[in-house]
């Protein structure tokens, strides 16, 4: 009993339980959900097919964003709602640098690395802007990022003069590798990118004081200042890290389609990213956080999305079902509900004991 209680009280239990429930549902509904086959894509390269691969593939952006979002949530007690717009900007910058003013290029202007680095810098600058508003002007994060949320997609369109550059396969084939497959490797590239990002952040959290500082700033900025920390700087750093995550997601997003649609790309992804953090059991009011739980939360959300698609839910009706699942999850994990249920079980057991004694 004690072991069970220990497991249940662990933070990572919530996303794990949600994942198990979803997996169980799929197992009962249609066991072929878990089948993975080795097929060939249109170029004849070997690729793995299957719903699980899809989840890992398309959950990558979300997992990467969840890393940054967890840090921002922990440090500031608020969420960044401009990540979707930020992805549009980053993607737009990448295409602008690669294509120049020509929207149907026959050859790329520079190498992808340069374009990506420029996008990272731009993204970091925008995030730092958010961070300054939050840290120095003491504006609530959701409101401060509302600014970029409103302007972001407009800025993205403006960067490319409202044109939609396309990098065709004839022009440069390797550009599409980042969002799809590298020839010869059957696992989608975004999975590797996500894995590397997770690895880096885990090493950083393990070998630096980032986690400790972020948590202490999130719990009490005043007392962290008295202990010699610079809360403003740490808040800005958390935003800047989110900026890097946004740029990486932006690269994956553009590379998937080799083009960009400013009003549609990464739409509503900020909501999914915040949900990932919440599903991971992290307090949205800041303070302590568990990075693994957030990342797992991101994949749970993608699992849910894929499951719903498999059940032939129309993509525009998808949010309604998602909302129901989310509400069930948060209600089940709400402390008050847990307490009530725990109390109910206790009562039940004690009455049972009494009954046994009487007999």
């Amino acid at each position: 009993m004690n072991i069970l209680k220990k497991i249940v009280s662990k933070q990572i239990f919530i996303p794990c339980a949600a994942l198990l429930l979803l997996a169980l549902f799929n197992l009962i509904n249609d066991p072929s959900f878990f089948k993975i086959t080795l097929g060939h894509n249109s170029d004849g390269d070997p690729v793995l097919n299957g719903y699980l691969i899809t989840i890992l593939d398309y959950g990558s952006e979300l997992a990467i964003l969840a890393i940054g979002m967890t840090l921002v949530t922990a440090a500031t007690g608020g969420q960044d709602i401009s990540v979707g717009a930020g992805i549009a900007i980053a993607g737009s910058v990448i295409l602008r640098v690669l294509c120049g003013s020509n929207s149907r290029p026959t050859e790329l202007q520079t190498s992808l690395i340069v374009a990506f680095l420029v996008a990272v810098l731009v993204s970091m600058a925008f995030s730092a802007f958010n961070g300054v508003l939050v840290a120095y002007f003491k504006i609530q994060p959701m409101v401060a990022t509302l600014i970029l949320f409103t302007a972001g997609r407009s800025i993205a369109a403006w960067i490319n003069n409202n044109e939609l550059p396309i990098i065709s396969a004839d022009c440069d084939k390797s550009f599409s590798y980042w969002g799809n497959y590298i020839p010869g490797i059957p696992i989608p590239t975004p999975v590797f990118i996500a894995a590397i990002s997770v690895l880096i952040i885990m090493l950083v959290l393990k070998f630096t004081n980032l986690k400790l500082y972020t948590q202490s700033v999130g719990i009490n900025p005043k007392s962290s200042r008295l202990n010699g920390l610079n809360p403003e700087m740490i808040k800005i750093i958390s935003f800047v890290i989110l900026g890097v995550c946004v740029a990486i997601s932006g690269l994956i997003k553009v590379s998937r389609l080799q083009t960009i649609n400013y009003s549609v790309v990464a739409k509503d992804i900020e909501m999914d990213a915040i949900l990932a953090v919440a599903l991971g059991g992290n307090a949205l009011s800041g303070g302590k956080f568990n990075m693994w739980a957030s990342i797992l939360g991101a994949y749970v959300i993608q699992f849910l999305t894929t499951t719903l698609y498999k059940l032939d839910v129309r993509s525009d009706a998808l949010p309604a079902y998602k909302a129901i699942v989310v509400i069930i999850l948060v209600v089940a994990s709400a402390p008050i509900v847990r307490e009530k249920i725990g109390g109910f079980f206790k009562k039940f057991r004690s009455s049972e004991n009494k009954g046994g004694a009487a007999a």
Partner: protein
Amino acid sequence: MIKKLRNMNDTNLLLTITVVVFVVMYLCAVIFLGEGFRSPQTFLNLFNNNASLIIIACGLSLVMITGGIDISVGGVTALVCMSCAVNLDLHGGNVFTSMLIALGIGLAFGLVQGFLIAYLDIQPFIVTLAGMFFARGLTTIVHTDPFNVQNPDFVDLRNARITIPGLGSTNRKGMYIDATIEIGVVVAIVIVLALFFMLRWSKLGRNFYAVGGNQQSALMLGINVKRTKFLSYVFCGLLAGIAGYVYFMHVGSGSPSHAQGAEMNAIASSIIGGTMLTGGVGNIVGTLFGVLSLSTIKDIVSSIGLDDAWWTGITVAAMLCIFLIVQSIVMAKKHSKGSSSKKEETAAAAQT
């Protein structure tokens, strides 16, 4: 003058800034852009086009004053439009049943969200985010494609205009055109006034401020914090339902893409109007001016000739940014000056 400003409470100070900015902005537009802005109808159109946004923003201000947030309002608006449209045209309903549906949907969202947030203590952002997803998804389940409503009673209602005497103007051909407002505007004004009086003088209204300012002390004063929070969400949901019907009367159609981003516009208007997301500070009249300022800046941008779609987004964001920074600086200055005298220092300490 400055002393007077310093003695104002936060709510009135932020309200003053908003009103002054709106008046200055509109005067500038009248002086420099002329023609269009000079006719009273342009001013009335600010109300005609934004009646539903005013109502949504009022509901949102209420929730924000109690320290919460509700981002489901845009979704609810779209759901109401679609449900009413389907009811009127496909299910043979009449205007009365459609109104009932609108109120019912709003109330249902308010009750459920309020219960989850106030009594189960779940983060308002998550609950209303799910509410938004649910409403948007349900809208497309109710009916997929956008369509115009043909029901004759409703079309009459939609085209009904109230003439304002004495404000009409003559057009280029010398014909006199009456200045008119839509029915929705009257609804919006009534709601603004009702909420204004409620927040200022009713017990419930004062409770909203108390809960938003400091939950703990509100609880110690004997206020039922949970019930107050619950009621704020019920009000907000109900107002979103009404706003949905007003929007429906304005556009006369149902579509899944209606009121896209309305929640963010409403939040922005409330903030520009001086409501703070941390709770306890805010004013309904400020919210009204927030909506007006937001749409004035949009009008100005399009009349300057910056028609490209992205300029609207960028200017609105820039304006929001400036307002937020000004607010934050003003509040910081006020509080740092307030603590210079000892008497005020204790007052500030008591506040925090």
